Structures are given as structure tokens and as C-alpha cells.
């Protein structure tokens, strides 16, 4: 059966996406669907499609600095359209200040700094989606 809950990852670097997928799959196995987009436009389209398919997007993990539309702009748009979707920002840029400024506008649940450790990533994701190991 296709999973009804999805985690959407957005990053301009495909290798980041692959890494994220590996780590998430290793931890959560096939519990969720993992969807990927290489830029914000593609991601918005993806989200629309997923919503149309009645798939519940439990989390967006987005890069901060991206060509074209930046992470904060992208999440703002998502937030406008689908206010319930929570998000994590991944940033390798020492721009925490700018991220925290944008926090209240984009329903931001946390920040992951590059390079992340596997534990940090999983812990952050779990805290957002309220994953219960026993479940």
C-alpha cells in the first residue's frame, strides 16, 4: 500500500537529497513516503500534487539557500497556502540570524545546520512529527 504520510525534502544539491533519504529511510523504514524536489518551484508543484492525492504532508525539510527562490520565500508561500505544514530548515550558511527572523512567518519548527549528524537530524524530525517509537 502506498503510504498516506509524506516527508518532502527540497535542496538544490541532489546528493543532499539522497543523503537525507538514506538517513530517513534507515530510521523510519517505509513508514512514510519521501518526496524530493531540486528547487522551490518543483517543490510547490509537488506539494500541490500530493495534496491533490490526499497525501498528508507531515514535514518539509528545505535548504535555506537555493537558486531562484530561497528557502524562506518558499516556506512562506507554502505557509500561505497550507498553513498546517510544518517545516525544518537546513542551512550550511552561517545565517542563523536571518533564519530566526523568518521563523514566525514560515511556521518553522527547527533548524538543522550542515554538516548534520544522523542523530541530530532524526531527533529534530522526531520532535516535529511526534514519532513514537513504540508505535
Amino acid at each position: 500500500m502506498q503510504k498516506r504520510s509524506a516527508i518532502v525534502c527540497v535542496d538544490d544539491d541532489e546528493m543532499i537529497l539522497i543523503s537525507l533519504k538514506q538517513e530517513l529511510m534507515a530510521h523510519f523504514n517505509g513508514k512514510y513516503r519521501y518526496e524530493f524536489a531540486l528547487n522551490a518551484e518543483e517543490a510547490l508543484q509537488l506539494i500541490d500534487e500530493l495534496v491533490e492525492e490526499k497525501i498528508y504532508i507531515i514535514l518539509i525539510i528545505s535548504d535555506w539557500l537555493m537558486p531562484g527562490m530561497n528557502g524562506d520565500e518558499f516556506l512562506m508561500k507554502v505557509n500561505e497556502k497550507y498553513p498546517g505544514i510544518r517545516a525544518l530548515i537546513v542551512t550550511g550558511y552561517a545565517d542563523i540570524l536571518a533564519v530566526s527572523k523568518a521563523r514566525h512567518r514560515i511556521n518553522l519548527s527547527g533548524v538543522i545546520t550542515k554538516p548534520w549528524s544522523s542523530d541530530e537530524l532524526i531527533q529534530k524530525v522526531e520532535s516535529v512529527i511526534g514519532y513514537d517509537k513504540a508505535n
Partner: protein
Amino acid sequence: MNRISIKRIGLAQKLSGMVFLLGILIYIPSIILGAVTNLNRIKTELADYKQGVEMRVQNAFEPAIWNYDIESLRKLITLELNNENLESVRVSTEEISLIWLSSKDGEVVDETVAPQGKYIEKKVIPVYRMDEQERIIAYATIWYDYSPIRQEYFKQLIHDLLLVGAIFLTISVAVTISSYVRLVRPLEVIRNSMIEAGKSASVGRKKLGKARFNRAFSEIKTMALDMENMFNEIEEANQKIRENEAQFRAFFNQAGVGVVQVIANSGELVIANQRYCEIVGYSVEELKNMTYTDITHEEDIKNQIIMTEKLINGEIEKYRHEKRYRHKDGRLVWADVTITPLWEPGETPTFILAVVQDITDRKLAEEKIIKLNNELEDKVAERTRDLESANCELEAAIENLRSAQAQLINTEKMAVLGRLVAGIAHELNTPLGVINSAGGTIERVLQNELDNVIEFCCKAPDDVYRIYTGLVNKSNDYQENAHKRMLRRTYYNTAEENGIEIDSEIIEKLVDLGYQGEADDFIELVSNPENIEAVKTAYSVAILHKSVEMIRVSTEKASKVIIALKTYSHKDTNKSLVPHDVVEDMETVLTLYYNQMKYGVEIIKEYETVPHVICFPDKLHQIWVNIINNALQAMNYKGTLKIRISNDSDRVKVSISNNGPAIPDSIIDRIFEPFFTTKILGEGTGLGLDIVKRLVEEIDGDINVESKPDETTFNIWLKT
């Protein structure tokens, strides 16, 4: 005739007598003196003559004597005997007489007897041989005869005495006649007339006596009148002298300068005028008991004593100096003093006359001027010192500025580096994150799946193993996310349509492996459990492959950034110009800026094949960094950056263009000036383009800027 007239006659007589006596007193000694002088002259002449004779005897006679040439000797002696003072000459050796000649009444004759007489002098002269030994070879005996010379002398003396006698006689006669005519005779007449008057009181007395008496009396009267006139004249002269003296005294006392007379040897003050008294503060009476040293300032005494001694010794005629007097009230008085001796050269020093001018005011003024001058000089010196130290400070400041400038260039470089580091951190963190993650994945796969993989490889039948290898090989093909989603939907739908219960994990893995099978193939694949194992194993191996590949790519990325950073911050110790690849250099800089440009800047590169440029490599990229940095800021990190590297005759031309706003004409001339910046305070140093210009000029290149809306280009020409 009155009493005075008679008195005057007596005076006149006395006067004339005194004049006469004086004349004789002066004249007679002069005659004697003349005679003595004459005698001395004669004696000197005689001595000279004798010396001459004796010299000639030695010099002229000697060769004749030595050669025994009697004839020559005779001639020589004859010549000598022509002189009347020489009477006789004999030449003889120790043993014999060679020749003996005498002068007799003007004739030279042989002689055998020595001349006798009161005024004969005999002298024996040894004649020396004129060689080294100088032994005596003969004796010349000479008899001088002084009688002719004595005669001449006495003739002269008698002549002088006769002259004296004659003059004496003439004067006596003249005086006698004069007194007889003018005095004795009139008196005689008067006396006779009186006698006659006494003898006969007759009528005739009146007639004769009165006439003669009257004539005599009138003569005396005339003389008396003359005398009176003379006396009046003398009186008048005296009066004049007295007046002159009064005038002189007034002149002396009221003169504007001090005048003082001093005894030359003792320095005692004899007389001083009013002004002098004023100058030194003592009265004339007080000064009479003082010497000039008493009132001279102690420091000036020594000099004045020396000068006075010179004056007394006749070394100087007079002198003028400036000296200080000690005024009676103790204050100092400056004076210009002219010292003149009152004796003639050769005379005994008597008095000194000093003319003294008070120059205290002038001196004070002078001192004031000197003081002011000194103060001024001090001030000038002080000011000069200030200037010198200011100059030193300025030089030090310039030196500091120079080193500061060098430091600033380096600081600017590091500042640019600092700004870059923030962006570069991202560039490094991303590959590091990927490496970390991939590492984790590999570890996990190896831990969890290795056994399964090995088991599968050992046990799988050939056809299943083929499916496995096919999937692994396919996994390297790139698939877009949208395509993957489409595939996934298709597989889910197919499984649903055919009523196959399939684990979503398998579908995900197939999608990730890039499997693209038709519906039948897919159903066949997922229906066989052995095939499912092949898919799982293939996925694990593909993940390993992918992770290793990701680590490799990320490592390359990271090392590229590191190399660029290293190149940029590298401080070249080699200060010489070397050929350098400008394209490679540009690429290094672009790598550093990649992160800042990738989200909004399109880079257009037009590189021709160019030769290496001659430069300082570690400074060359500083040029590009600064220009690119400026370009990015100018277009706010959004726009097009065009970099052209081309050949321009024998140089390489690098053009860096951006499509930001144009540089205003008002500042375009100033952009290369140091510290010129359009950025807000503290944001830019304003050194970027100054450094660029400096660096370009340092390697003998050229730079210019062209700016119009939507295109600003910096052109740089570099030597190859």
C-alpha cells in the same frame, strides 16, 4: 717826556741786548758743534781709508809677494803712495826687506830710513798666504802721515772762528751805531744843551740851544711813541690771549663731550671739564686727587693700562675705545673715549688728553637690540628645533603610513578573504555533510545488509543473479524526481490492478534503482520472492556505490575550495615576476565566489588561448577579487558577470563587465583614489580599486574603466 716813555726805552735796550746775547749763545755752540762734527767726519774717513789700505795690502800685494814680483809690488805701492796721508811703505819677509818706498814732495823714492815726525803712525800688517794654511809670508810696514789732514782741519776751524768773529763784530758795530744814533746822541745833545744853558744864560742860548734841544727831544719822543705803540700792541695781544683763554675755557667747560687731561705716567687727572664731571659724577676738586683707574670699571682697567703703555712707548699715535666708567653713585656709564698724547713723537710723555662721549643710552639700546636679537635667535632656534622635530615626526609618520599602507593592502586582502569565508563555509559544509551522511549509510549497509548480500551472491540461481546485476548497472542512470514519482504511481497502480500484495519498500527501491519495466515484467519480477531478494541486494549494493561516488565527488568539491582558498591567501615569498596562467588564476577566484554568485549571477566566460602573463602570482588574483567583488556589490549579487580574456597585440586583455548601474560621471575619475568609497562608513575601506591600480602598475600593466547603463567594464592589460 713822561716817566713811562723812559722806562720803555730801557726795556727796549735790554730786549735788544738779550736778543744779541741769545744770538751769540746759539751761534757759537753751533760753530763748535760744526767743528766737532767736521773732526769726526775726518776721523771716520781716515779710518775707512786705513782699512782700505790694509785690505789692499793683503789682497793685492799677496800674489806679487808670493810670486816675488818686485816690479808689480812697486807699481802697487806707488799707487798707494799717491795718497797724501801715506808717507812710506815697506814690504819684508822674516829675513829680508823686499822693497821700501816713500813719498817725498810728490815723488816716489826708495827709502832706507824710517820716517820720523809728530804725526807719523807706523803700522805692521802681516800678509797671509791665501790658502788653507794661511801662514804669514811677509810683513807690510806702513807709515801714515796725519799732518796734511790736521792742516786741513785747522784751516777749517780757523775759517769758522773768523766767521764768528766777523759776525760778532758786525753785530756789535750795528748795535753801537744804532744806540748812538737813536739814544746816545740825542741824550748827548740834551746834556750839552743843558750845560750850555747853565754856562751862559745869554740871548744866544735861546737861539742855538733851543733848536738843537728840540730836535733831540723830538727824536727821543718819537722813539718813546714807537715804544708805546709797541707796548700797546703787546697789551692788545695779551688782551686777546686773555679773551681767547676765556673763550677756550668756556668752550672747554661747556663742550658737549667730556674732556680730561691726565698725567701720562701716573694716570692722575689734572683737569677735567664740566661735562666730564657730569659723566663720572665727581667734582673737579675731587678728581684732582684721583687717577683714571679709580673711576674706570674694573674689567676695562687692564685694557686701558696696556693701551696707555703703548701710547707712552710710541707704538701707537692715539687710540679710541669704548669703556665703562664707574659713576660716583655706583652705576655704570658707557663712554666712547678718544685718547691723544700731548707730546710730540720722541719727546718725554707728559699729558694725555681724553675726549669722552657718554654713549650709555646708545649702549643700552645696543644691549637691548642684542638682547632682542638673541631672543629672536633663540626663538628662531627653538622654532627650528620644533620644525626639525615636527619634520622628524612627519618622516616617522610617513614611514608609518608607508608600512600602514603595505599592511592595509594585506588587511584588505584578508578582509576580502574574511567576507569570502562565510560563503565558503557553506561550500565546505555541504560536501562535509554529504560525506558524513554517506559514511553513515555505508556503515549501516555494511552492518545490516552485508550478510544478506553475500548470502544472495552465493546462493542465487543464475537467472536471479542476472536480474540483480541488471538492476545494479541501471542504478547509475540519472532519473528526475518527477519521472520517479510517475514510475512509482505506475507500479503502485499495476500492482493494485493485478491484485498483487507488494511491500511499498520494494516499489521505492525499484524506483530508486531506476527500474523501468513494462507491467508484465514488473509483475513477473515482484511475483518471485527470489527476485525480491535480488532487488533488495541490488539496492544495497547500489546505495554503497552511490555513497562512495558521493564521497568522491564531495571530496573533490571540498578540496577545490580548499585549494582556491590556499591559493588566495598564499603569501608569495618569491618577490620576482614570473609567468603565470591568468585563466587558471581567474578560475580560482571564481571558485571562491561561486557560492555568492550561484543564486543570482550568471557568469559568461569568453576565454581565448592566451600566453602566460608576467606578474606576481599572489597579487594577481587580488586584482580579480577586488574587481569581481565590486561588480557583485554594484549589481547587488543579481545580474550578469562577463569575463573576457583575450589577446590584444602583444598583451593579454582581461575585461570584467557587470550589468549593474553605471558609475556616475561625477565620480568616475575618483574611483581609483585611495579611501574613496560610495559605501556607508565602516563597510568598505575605499582601498579596493586603489590597490588594484597599484598592483596593475606594479607589474607594468594598464587599467581603465568604461561605464554606461547596464554595462560597466574594467579593462586590464597585462604584459606577457
